[in-house]
């Protein structure tokens, strides 16, 4: 027996490595790799060249955009001036409404437990695989980003931070199969959980068959988990099926954000009320 082991020790060693990999896979079934300092440091180190090259490419592009491609600048300037005037008027009206709203909130003694500070971040990389949906951004723990922070864009929710290094972070997109976000339908406040499906779509889970869900309904964040501000758009209902068995509706939705065209995002930093300036 010992002779056999001695003879085949190379093969046995390789098999041990293979089964170690399988054991590693089995350990984290339906969960993610637990964060550890080594992984974070290595992730930060390997992501640094991505960040540097993305920065250089962006600067070069901006240089070309600013100095070499200014052909229609005068015309664009006049259009923007007009647009600015319109927006200034609109802004005044909105300020008045905001002040009125603030007064009403004060009257109702409405107090927000948290308020949100946001920092802009640039996308520097994407998931190496085609099955999982993550992006890498150029902001990390040095900028105040922490695991679990929400990431949004003006069009809607992007995802949440799952790994943080000192100057880079990994964002799990809302379309990834591991992602879930608490949401409500804007029209009638029906609650559900938005779960990623791996492709460029999500599904709304745990919505009872008795609820009224229509095609083209907009889903927004409920704000209950404190990760995202309340009312940020998530997606539009694209398909509703009332299956014969089961308690819940089968609802599919399309995210409002086009992830393939995304270049920059906002990271939502949650701060306690006493940190409010």
């Amino acid at each position, binding site marked *: 027996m010992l002779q056999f082991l001695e003879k085949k020790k190379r093969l046995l060693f390789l098999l041990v490595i293979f089964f170690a990999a399988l054991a590693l896979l089995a350990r984290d079934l*339906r969960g993610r790799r637990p964060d550890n300092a080594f992984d974070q440091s290595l992730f930060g180190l390997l992501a640094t060249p991505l960040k540097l090259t993305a920065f250089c490419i962006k600067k070069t592009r901006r240089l070309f955009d600013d100095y070499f491609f200014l052909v229609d600048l005068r015309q664009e300037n006049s259009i923007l001036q007009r647009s600015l005037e319109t927006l200034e008027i609109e802004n005044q009206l909105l300020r008045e409404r905001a002040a009125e709203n603030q007064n009403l909130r004060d009257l109702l003694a409405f107090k927000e437990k948290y308020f949100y500070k946001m920092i802009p971040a640039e996308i520097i990389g*994407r998931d*190496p695989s085609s099955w999982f949906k993550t992006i890498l951004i150029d902001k990390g723990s040095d900028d105040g980003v922490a695991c679990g922070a929400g990431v949004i864009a003006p069009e809607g929710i992007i995802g949440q931070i799952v790994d943080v290094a000192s100057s880079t972070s990994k964002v799990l997109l809302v379309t990834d199969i591991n992602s879930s976000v608490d949401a409500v339908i804007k029209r009638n406040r029906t609650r559900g959980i938005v779960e990623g499906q791996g492709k460029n779509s999500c599904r709304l889970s745990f919505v009872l068959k008795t609820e009224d869900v229509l095609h083209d309904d907009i889903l927004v964040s409920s704000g209950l988990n404190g990760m995202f501000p309340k009312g940020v758009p998530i997606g539009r209902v694209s398909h509703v099926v009332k299956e014969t068995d089961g308690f819940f509706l089968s609802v599919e939705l399309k995210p409002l954000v086009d992830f393939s065209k995304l270049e920059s995002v906002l990271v939502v930093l949650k701060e306690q009320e006493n940190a409010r300036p």
Partner: protein
Amino acid sequence: MLFSGVRLFAVGYLLLFLQIHEYLPFGKQGIRPDLLLIFVLYNALHCSALLAVIIGFVAGYMCELFSATNAGLYITIYIAAIFVAKALQKYFDFDSIRNCFCLLLVCLFVKLFILSFCFLFVYEYNFLLSETVWLYESIFTAALFPGVYYLVTVLLKKQREPHVVFGAPSHAHSITRRPF
């Protein structure tokens, strides 16, 4: 030895970099080719089994650092691909690019098998969708195979050349071609 290790790591990282960088052609694509699989296969064919497995482990680990996948998925895929390559190397000659291409196709099916297992039992993933994604990714990887394989060959060429000492090839070269 250290220089060789650094060079192997640098080439692997370069391919991962090409695969995931936002401003490079594959970054914006929904489907990305598996360039690291080509790198792993090259090393499986040109290194000893032990070194190839270590390279496969590191490549899989690097891949998982940037991915949302569970720990071990890519490590398992790459090590399984190395095992298949080493097993087939006993029976086939992989000096021609055509045979290497056939090996890549076999390894892509091995990848499909492992992924299918994971998607059926680990993730709640649409199985049909995963097969479709696999098909597109495989076509993409296969289309880029000759170019990437050539690039890896060029970048690691000096390391594979026999060290000629006083006109005779050294022992080191024979070790690199030892069958599994």
